[in-house]
């Protein structure tokens, strides 16, 4: 019976995409994993590299919970394939602190109570890191507009904006 089952499974194999070795550089460390081309960067981070700080919200680029930084720019990790990001520098929420020293935005989010359930927070913070690096947010209205790709269902927006505003006022993008 066991052989029979093994045969049936192997007969199904051609329908599955072949796995390929992909080397991802995440938070400064290179890791090689075997995955199918259809694995999103988000799923690779969470399911293959056990970096579960990056969250899966909508999986369609509408909520921003999966935001990470690729080559310093914020993107939706659910809408890119892991295999496409080979060779790029990927930073996730786990890579922002320097040892025990939090990123200024992480500190500001705590001080401003910029979350309730916390599910959107890693995406909010990574998005805000990208916003600081872009240097386009000059006003509170700019912050709101340029953070609109991150949804917070708890509605912590007021404190999220305050946290980001404080970091900008203190000189922006320290800690890179």
């Amino acid at each position: 019976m066991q052989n029979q089952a093994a045969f049936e499974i192997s007969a199904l194999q051609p329908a599955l995409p072949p796995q390929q070795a992909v080397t991802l550089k995440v938070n400064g460390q290179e890791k090689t994993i075997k995955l199918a081309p259809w694995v999103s960067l988000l799923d690779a981070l969470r399911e293959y590299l056990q970096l579960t700080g990056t969250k899966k919200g909508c999986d369609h680029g509408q909520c921003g919970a999966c935001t990470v930084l690729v080559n310093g720019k914020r993107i939706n990790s659910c809408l890119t394939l892991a295999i496409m990001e080979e060779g790029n520098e990927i930073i996730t929420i786990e890579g922002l602190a320097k040892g025990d020293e939090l990123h200024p935005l992480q500190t500001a989010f705590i001080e401003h109570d910029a979350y309730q359930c916390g599910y959107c927070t890693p995406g909010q913070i990574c998005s805000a890191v990208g916003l600081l690096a872009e240097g386009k947010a000059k006003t509170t209205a700019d912050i709101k507009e340029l953070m609109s790709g991150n949804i917070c269902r708890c509605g912590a927006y007021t404190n999220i904006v305050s946290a980001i505003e404080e970091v900008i006022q203190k000189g922006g993008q320290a800690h890179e």
Partner: protein
Amino acid sequence: MNSFTYTRATTLETAVQDKASAELAKFIAGGTNLTDLMKVNVEGPNHLIDIRQLALKDITDNADGGLRLGALATNADTAYHEQVAKRYPLLAKAILAGASAQLRNMATNGGNILQRTRCYYFYDTATACNKREPGSGCAALSGFNRIHAILGASEHCIAVHPSDMAIALAALEANVNVTGQQGNRTIPFSDFHRLPGDAPHLDNTLQPDEIITSIDLPAKGFAQHHAYLKLRDRESYAFALVSVAAGLEMDGDTITEARIALGGVAHKPWRNREAEDLLTGKSATEENFKLAAAEIMREAKGYEHNSFKIELGKRAIMRALEQAVKMSNKPDSHFHRTSTEPV
């Protein structure tokens, strides 16, 4: 998502050959729309050709005084490019009115104008959609069609094109440069997207073996008098119900040239040359703007849930034209409104 293979193209030639040799192959760059459509089984390529390594990212001056936007320049890099912001602020504003910062960092210029409709029925494989499955019918015709077309639609499809960038490119009369197995060709922007007719599965006139290499902006950028007005259900990160890209050339109070392109109302960026001609040589008055708006909407047809777009569209056109005129720093602007209420 269905199974597929993946390669990275290193030259334009191999990318085109690779695509032509596999019938169900697709190019991928930003991936923001294609990946999503693959997840919901609307797109099912068996082979993906990653073109992001190709040297098509630059934004450079053209000899005619215009600007060439590389097909692989991201929407963010394009909108914030010094020359685009300075000479083509209408385009920069339209790009920044679309999507989110994350998506603009991923999405490319070529991909932006190739993105597909966000019609609910196109996305829902349980319903009829001639664009997704030719011959299956159009569920939107008698369905929830609040976001759908009021101009240029057919009995086969009432989907709208979702791009903001494309609306500005239509107003600016950009040209799309493509290359394929037959060589290079240039497609005027007004001929790039198409109306649905009886073949709504074809969004545009790009051939299967062709790839967009760049988009050329003519020298005239309407930097002095322009507006991109986008009306939507929420203030940010939503598709347009109606959007208007307006560009004016003015001589004092007189309009010497007018461009008006509408988004959210048709299968392609909508322009009406007769309406634009109505404004040429005329004063920038509310009355003249009203005549142009009426002409643009003359053949508009609403469905059960979207008839509001006809009046909304007229008011949006008038307001965009007013905004385009008011950009002038002249204190004695001759355009006067009697009310401060939104149009």
